[in-house]
């Protein structure tokens, strides 16, 4: 029996994709996720000058200088000084209930592709929930570090970590550089746009996306019944199609604010751009002739945010220092997934903190540190909560010698 599954690999293999700590560890190092886990935590704080600057930085300056000098500027507005959108997802709050996935699917007219297509890896969800299992790390004394990767036995009592993952709207988007037709570009508000009309379906962007969040419409999922996906388009008129009445009903399901994509087009999370634009237009009407075009915090609610029962998702304007998302970005638990790629993702995550109760009968020594953290430690031979994990931060509290070794202890 084949099972249609969107994630058949259950381990992070010690990579810091989801970053976790126990409450005691978190109290000692509130910023453990960004400052002591992952390759990016080893970056020097004062990077030498870059080869080139992001247009958001270099051209804003140029345009300003020209504006001051001439009163006008040839340079178009590259970066909006009103809105810069960003999102945070609190892994502490997320329970992996999938409500956001369903909400996204219905909001954005995402086709349902059926079991057969999912088995071929052609699922279309713009938002997915990554699920990772981890177990207490046991490495026999003297064995190779890589050994834990080939663990074949199913752990008796694994820990589960979940992480919603959609397009993170990287400012330095790797998908954009490889598009031969500029079908995916940035706008002035930090959104990674997907221009469906320009897309010719090379799928280079999907291949180059480090987060693997781009989805390709292989067939006319929106037009054909799932059992005639493979029929020749030349014969389309002669083949059985959706009965007209069924098709009319299917149309009613669509969100009229979102374009229904045809086949051969790449698609991905848009940060619910239809809601952003709606809010902006409403605000402009309200503002009238005045300058108050900035959408107030909390007005733009993405579909996933709307659906999240745990309120794990925060979305808003990064430029407003008082917005919920700005505050969330300043949270010490905030970190960027694959931050070492210098993608400058707009969606960042808040690390997860576990709080196992030592009074419980099933409590064991191995629970002293989250299993994923143990895995990370064992694979990378660095203790995120030890002395070596920290760079540039002056923590007065370094008296945690016992804590330094607890991950090791816990594993034996």
């Amino acid at each position, binding site marked *: 029996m084949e099972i249609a599954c969107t994630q058949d690999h259950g381990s992070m293999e010690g990579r810091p994709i989801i970053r976790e700590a126990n409450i005691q560890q978190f109290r000692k190092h509130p910023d453990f996720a960004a400052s002591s886990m992952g390759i990016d935590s080893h970056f020097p704080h004062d990077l030498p000058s870059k080869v080139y600057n992001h247009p958001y930085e270099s051209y804003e300056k140029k345009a300003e200088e020209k504006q001051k000098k001439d009163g006008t500027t040839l340079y178009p507005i590259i970066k909006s000084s009103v809105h810069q959108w960003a999102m945070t997802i609190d892994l502490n709050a997320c329970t992996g209930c999938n409500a956001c996935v369903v909400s996204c699917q219905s909001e954005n007219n995402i086709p349902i592709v059926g079991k057969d297509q999912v088995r071929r890896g052609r699922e279309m969800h713009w938002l997915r929930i990554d699920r990772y299992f981890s177990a207490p790390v046991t490495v026999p004394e003297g064995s190779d570090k890589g050994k834990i990767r080939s663990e074949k036995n199913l752990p008796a009592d694994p820990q589960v970590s979940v992480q919603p993952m959609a397009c993170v709207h990287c400012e330095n988007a790797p998908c*954009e550089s490889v598009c031969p037709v500029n079908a995916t570009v940035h706008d002035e508000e930090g959104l990674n746009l997907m221009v469906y009309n320009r897309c010719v379906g090379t799928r280079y962007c999907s291949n180059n996306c480090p987060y693997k969040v781009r989805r390709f419409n292989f067939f006319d999922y929106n037009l054909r019944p799932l059992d005639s996906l493979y029929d020749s388009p030349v014969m389309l008129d002669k083949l059985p199609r959706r009965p007209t009445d069924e098709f009319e009903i299917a149309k009613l399901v669509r969100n009229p604010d979102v374009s229904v994509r045809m086949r051969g087009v790449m698609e991905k999370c848009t940060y619910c751009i239809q809601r952003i634009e709606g809010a902006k237009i409403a605000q402009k009407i309200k503002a009238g002739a005045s300058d108050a075009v900035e959408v107030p915090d909390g007005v733009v609610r993405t579909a996933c945010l709307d659906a999240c029962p745990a309120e794990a998702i925060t979305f808003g304007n990064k430029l407003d220092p008082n917005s919920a998302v700005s505050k969330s970005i300043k949270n010490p638990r905030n970190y960027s997934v694959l931050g070492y790629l210098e993608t400058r993702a707009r969606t960042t995550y808040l690390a997860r903190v576990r709080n196992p109760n030592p009074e419980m009968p099933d409590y064991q020594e191995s629970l002293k540190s989250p299993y994923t953290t143990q895995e990370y430690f064992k694979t990378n031979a660095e203790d995120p909560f030890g002395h070596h994990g920290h760079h540039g931060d002056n923590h007065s509290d370094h008296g945690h010698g016992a804590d330094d070794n607890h991950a090791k202890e816990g594993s034996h």
Partner: protein
Amino acid sequence: MAQDSQKLHGLLAQFDTPADLMHAAEMIRDHGYSRWDVFSPFPIHGMDDAMGLKNSKVGWFTFIGGFTGFFSGMGMIWYMNEFNYPLIVGGKPFFSPIFSFPVAYELTILLGAFGTLLGMAFLNRLPRLHNPLLKHSSFKRATDDQFFLLIEASDAKFDSSVTRQLLESTHPVKIEEVQE
């Protein structure tokens, strides 16, 4: 003669051997004629020197074409990406000579080739609908076994009798007038 009303195109001297033609060419070169040419059934080594021909100027046209192509390619991309329709792609600068190089390179080759072709045509005064030599009956042997030297009447130094005397001193088989 009925041909009086026609314009003289030039004087055509006919030779039996390439050596005779070569000596004649050297003499004409030394007398400073500029609009003249030799015709032979096969290439004659050393004839360039004997005629005093310098390197072809077509290379300059090639260079100008290539230069224009390279900078129009770069300039086009610079203008379009920087001013006309700037797009933020992967956080990269709007213009860089590196990514626009292939286009500039292709245009270098294209306009370089155009420059070469048009420059060659210009220097050879092509296209030309008709060359009076082609209707001259004895000139047909230029593709067979005879060697010819033509001094055009449009040459500044051309003088019907003087030039004819000069040609006669090179001992041609015969000298004929070519009419337009």
